[in-house]
């Protein structure tokens, strides 16, 4: 089945739910919707993949066709640089910003306005770093493998230190690539043991600059096994790629994004409605079903395939440690894996 039709089908299913009138409050009051529709559009800055966010916008427009979303997409560090510079020049065009690095966003907190979604109480407190930022996107790490090449697939994180996977069979995203990888690295050391990196590095790991090329390399057979963000490999699996993914019992490191509405937003109501919808049960369900996301809702509306809530626990990094340990540990990681920084 084509990915497009899968996504379109799922988006259609998600949007065709008819909610009782009271449930409309899930997205905001009637006045908010009317004001948002009057504004008619908003500008959305994202560090996520444009294609993925386009699906989000399409699904949002099924529910609210009168609010158009213009998207600007750039890699994480570059979009931050752009936001800072635009804001300093008084030309920040973004109404809503979507970013995976909570630390970087926290530094820009002053550029964002106070915002609370209608279902604020449903979110895990450990996924929040500021009352201005909310996890519209939450991603989680899985273990992926090429089904044509791996006859004995790994079942746990610990399996990724086994001798049988020696010789560039395992691919890894390099430590300094960003907040999502740093979360995984932190998890490996804090949960899997101080010597986990060393044991794994001894297997000769193939290093990749980011997750997307690694997922492509896995499908092509350049590497056989790789820890990957589930959303990166999920759509490929749905399309029929020779790959499979599992969630390991030691834990699933998750990355709650920090999304917010800028103070200078020219369409604050449209921005609010867009954020409300993305954070709503409907928006989160769409993201899990169609995009392979996880959620930071305390009670997930559904689980990804193979996720047994009795066995699988999510792991969220402590934010103070996330900031404090970063430089020192990444330096050690680089040395252990022979990555030249």
């Amino acid at each position, binding site marked *: 089945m*084509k*990915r*497009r039709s899968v996504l379109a089908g799922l988006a259609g299913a998600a949007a065709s739910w008819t909610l009782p009138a009271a449930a409309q409050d899930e997205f905001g009051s009637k006045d908010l919707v009317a004001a948002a529709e009057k504004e008619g559009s908003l*500008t959305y800055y994202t560090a996520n*993949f*444009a*294609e993925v966010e*386009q699906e989000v916008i399409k699904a949002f427009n099924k529910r609210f066709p009168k609010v158009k979303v*213009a*998207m*600007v*997409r*750039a*890699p*994480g*560090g*570059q979009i*931050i*640089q*752009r936001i*800072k*510079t*635009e804001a*300093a*020049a008084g*030309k920040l*065009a973004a109404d809503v910003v979507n970013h995976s*690095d909570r*630390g*970087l966003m926290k530094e820009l907190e002053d550029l964002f306005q106070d915002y609370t979604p209608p279902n604020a109480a449903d979110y895990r407190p450990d996924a929040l770093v500021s009352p201005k930022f909310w996890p519209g996107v939450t991603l989680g790490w899985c273990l992926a493998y*090429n089904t*044509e090449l791996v006859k004995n697939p790994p079942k746990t994180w610990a399996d990724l230190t086994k001798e049988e996977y020696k010789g560039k069979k395992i691919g890894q995203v390099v430590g*300094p*690539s*960003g*907040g999502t990888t*740093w979360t995984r690295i932190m998890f490996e050391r804090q949960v899997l043991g101080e010597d986990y990196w060393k044991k794994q590095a001894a297997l000769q790991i*193939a*290093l*990749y*600059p*980011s*997750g*997307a090329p*690694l*997922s*492509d390399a896995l*499908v*092509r*057979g*350049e590497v056989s096994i790789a820890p990957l963000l589930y959303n*990166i490999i999920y759509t*490929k699996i749905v*399309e029929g*790629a*020779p790959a499979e993914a599992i969630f390991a019992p030691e834990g699933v490191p998750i990355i709650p994004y920090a999304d917010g509405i800028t103070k200078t937003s020219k369409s604050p109501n449209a921005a609010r409605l867009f954020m409300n919808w993305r954070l709503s049960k409907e928006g989160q369900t769409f993201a899990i079903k169609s995009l392979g996301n996880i959620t930071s809702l305390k009670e997930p509306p559904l689980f990804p395939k193979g996720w047994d809530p009795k066995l699988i626990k999510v792991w969220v990094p402590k934010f103070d440690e996330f900031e404090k340990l970063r430089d020192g540990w990444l330096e050690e990681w680089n040395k252990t894996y*022979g*990555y*030249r*920084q």
Partner: protein
Amino acid sequence: MTATSTAALAEATQPAAVPRRLGAPLWVGALVIVLAFLVLYPLLMLLFGALSDSNPVIDGFGKFRPSLDHFLKVLGNENVHLAFFNAIAACGGGTILAVAIGLAFSWIVVRTNTPFKRFIAGASMIPLFVPPLVAGVAWSILGSPKTGLLNTAFKWIGIDFRVDFYSMAGLILVFGIYYAPYVYMFTSSALQNMDPSLEEASEVSGASAFTTLFTVTFPLIAPAILAGSLLSFVVMLGIYGVPAALGAPANINVLTTYIFKLTAWSPPLYNTAAAVAILLMIVTAILVWAQQRVLMGKSFATVAGKAFRPRSLNLGPWRWFTFGLALAYLFVVVVLPTLALVIAAFRKFLFIKDFEALFDMRAYGWFHFAQVFDNPLTMLSIYNTLKVGVITALIGGALAFAIGYTVNRTQVPGRKAIDLLSTIPVAIPGLVVGVAYLWAWIGLPGGLYGTIWILALAFVARFIPDTVKALSTSFMQIHKELEEASWICGRGLLSTITSVVLPLARPGVVASMTLLFVLAIRELGSSLFLYTSDTTVMAVLLLDYYEGGNIGKTAAFSLVQTAILAVLLGLTNWLARGAAQGSARVG
């Protein structure tokens, strides 16, 4: 030129001399102001960034805290040393290969009776239109030691030989074949415009065709060879896509991949990246200076006021050998990578178990194209790219002509400064230059930021050196006597330019505008910081597909891009042919 004609010239030009005395400083001043805005101002921003911890827009110049920390950190970092030597090795090796291939090709096309020359000439330019990222991806599909199609084919045939393009040799080879067209462009137009009587004289004196080639022909087009090799070396230094796709898997870093890391890490280290960029600029400045030293005081004027046709060497049956050689080269640089891209674009997944699996037609279809065109950004980006490409080519072409003429054909004071200013951008790596333009131009009053014009401006500024250099070789070859003849006939400066210089330099002008158009279409580094949702361009979208880990869509979109470029190339080729005929008439 005789004394009489000099006197006549002085007389003829006297009426125009008064306004020109006033005009020259005004003209030079205007050019310097334009170049200062396009080049110096962003460069100062970059220097400001490299020498401090601040962002000039955010913190303002008032909070400038000068510090050499970034430079010292960069200079003392052994990984930077390694990246530096890797870059020199890869680009040096690549340039040598590019010169060998480019020169051989231009000789085959311009100077021999090899069959199907026009086809060979057109096809040999194709690598130039392939974005470096796509070239890198294509060659990783072909040359990966584990899953490469070449190795799969060797295994199927039963040959024990295996290739590994994830290596320094792989980098050099890909650099060499993809940047050979730069050398070709420079040398072929030089060969075309060369008076064959010099070669004939050599042969009449008893030299063999081979000796003539190396003692007369190549030395005469030395400025073109040097300019082409210098440009290709410097362009290679600034390329990210090829070393990213082929070097990264083998842990081979070059300066650009290092700079990219600095800007992509979280948090991004732009100030350090600016320091590395400044170092890269110093290296390039030394090379440019060296080139000028070599060429200083030598005359390379070979186009004189006498009609001639480029000489064509009759190779006899050997012409089929040169044809075969050209075909083999084209197979390696055009057919193989295009085939890899076609397979990747039409195959649902690029997992190829064995050679037979390649021919399983169930695995092929239009999925990736359907998805690419389902994306509303695709058509928008194509439209924007063409628009910005045309604007860039027109403005940049005009500016380059003005600069090239002033520098090469006049003696006005200040032309050296113009030459220097217009050469600087070649040394600034694209990944860093984007942030410099953002820092420099975001504060401009008016609605420039966020429009297509700011992108065009960035491209004009970024590629001014390439365009001016491409034009300069044409200027250097037009003998001064042609202009002098026009002056003697009573024509003014402007009239001489439009009726003599422009028609003669037209092949060069068209070629340099085409080059600018192509470079603008491929440019990513400066686009990334200046585009908005309405002005998104193809290069930005291509990076998005690549970063999204979808090699199929990346390949499909790059085939679309290549097809568009091929159509436009055909068009300019046709224009250039008209121009060549036009200039032959003028000559």
